[in-house]
């Protein structure tokens, strides 16, 4: 049986038509299931863990990158859960990286059920599936005690990828099954037409990021921590339904 977790923002009127279409498509494909609607009053953790305790094996996240990140942080410890994503709303870069189309079309991906086991990144106590980023040159990256990588320049963008999209040619593509986090440090020029220059790239399995002043760290695109942070490939992996045989 499939368990569909709808993020709370999907209760807005503008999403109702899309959700109705989606539910019809899921029924047509014979993969409809229990719908769990999140709300500000209900704890995501309790709801997800309750369903897992009752035997849920297929959890489908209906929402955006933030929804995916929240759910993986609760299900990472369970190695027999298969996750799926139906991206509705933005940002949805994680689904894009997994070749999952937006909205109703994602139902066919679920139905095809190409399950892949992929790495998860870990930053301090939190998991991430896609990337960790910092937009500041005032940090030091330490792969170990004997090595320091110091960004040079003004508009520095640091990205540590487990999984990324192929939107930007300056970004190397990652394989989320290789136990390596691709660390990209680049300078960004321009406001509207961004130009990526002076690219540095390090394949790492772990690193620490420190700074004199706390710097904001985005996890899967959401602001949630300040430096210092320890980042590594988690020992836990997740099973996830992908749009193509990507890896």
């Amino acid at each position: 049986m499939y368990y569909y977790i709808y993020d709370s923002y999907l209760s807005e009127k503008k999403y109702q038509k899309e959700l109705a279409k989606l539910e019809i498509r899921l029924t047509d494909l014979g993969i409809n299931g229990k719908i769990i609607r999140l709300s500000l009053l209900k704890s995501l953790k309790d709801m997800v863990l309750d369903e897992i305790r009752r035997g849920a094996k297929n959890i489908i996240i209906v929402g955006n990158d933030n929804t995916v990140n929240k759910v993986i942080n609760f299900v990472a410890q369970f190695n027999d859960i298969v996750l799926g994503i139906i991206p509705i709303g933005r940002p949805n870069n994680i689904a894009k990286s997994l070749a999952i189309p937006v909205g109703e079309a994602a139902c066919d991906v679920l139905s095809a059920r190409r399950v892949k086991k992929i790495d998860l990144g870990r930053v301090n106590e939190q998991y991430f599936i896609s990337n960790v980023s910092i937009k500041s040159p005032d940090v030091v990256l330490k792969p170990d005690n004997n090595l320091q990588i110091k960004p040079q320049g003004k508009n520095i963008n640091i990205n540590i990828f487990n999984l990324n999209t192929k939107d930007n040619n300056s970004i190397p593509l990652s394989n989320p099954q290789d136990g390596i986090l691709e660390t990209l440090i680049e300078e960004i020029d321009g406001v509207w037409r961004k130009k990526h220059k002076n690219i540095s790239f390090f394949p790492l399995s772990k690193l620490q990021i420190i700074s004199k002043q706390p710097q904001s760290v985005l996890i899967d695109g959401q602001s949630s921590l300040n430096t210092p942070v320890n980042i590594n490939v988690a020992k836990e992996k997740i099973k996830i339904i992908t749009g193509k045989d990507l890896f």
Partner: protein
Amino acid sequence: MFGKENNFEQPKEIETVIGASVKVEGDFVSAGNIIIRGIVNGSIKTQKNLSIEEKAVVNANIEAESIKIAGTIKGDVIAKNEISILSKAQIKGNIITNSLSIEKGAVINGNVTMGQTEKIKLEDKDKNKNIK
């Protein structure tokens, strides 16, 4: 490595790029190819190839399988296989290798020793690598 069309394709050989956006300090030990376009202070060891590009400034002893140099190096340069020194290169340090080529215009201040590379033991223990 960059801009490949096939998403998730594993690069044939993992590459590290030290660009002008960073300064690296310390002992840099890698299993893969390295391209340097920025600043490195410390030491560099890799089992694969190393390319020091024109604007790179390296204050470090370096060891690799093969090394191509177009930038500035202050430190000893050891390559198990070959070293290729391009016209814009400036090297202050000793060179040990099996095969050496030098372009007109390159500046070298140091001793050159040929054919003693069998003594060179490039880093090969996983536990010592800080870059994959």
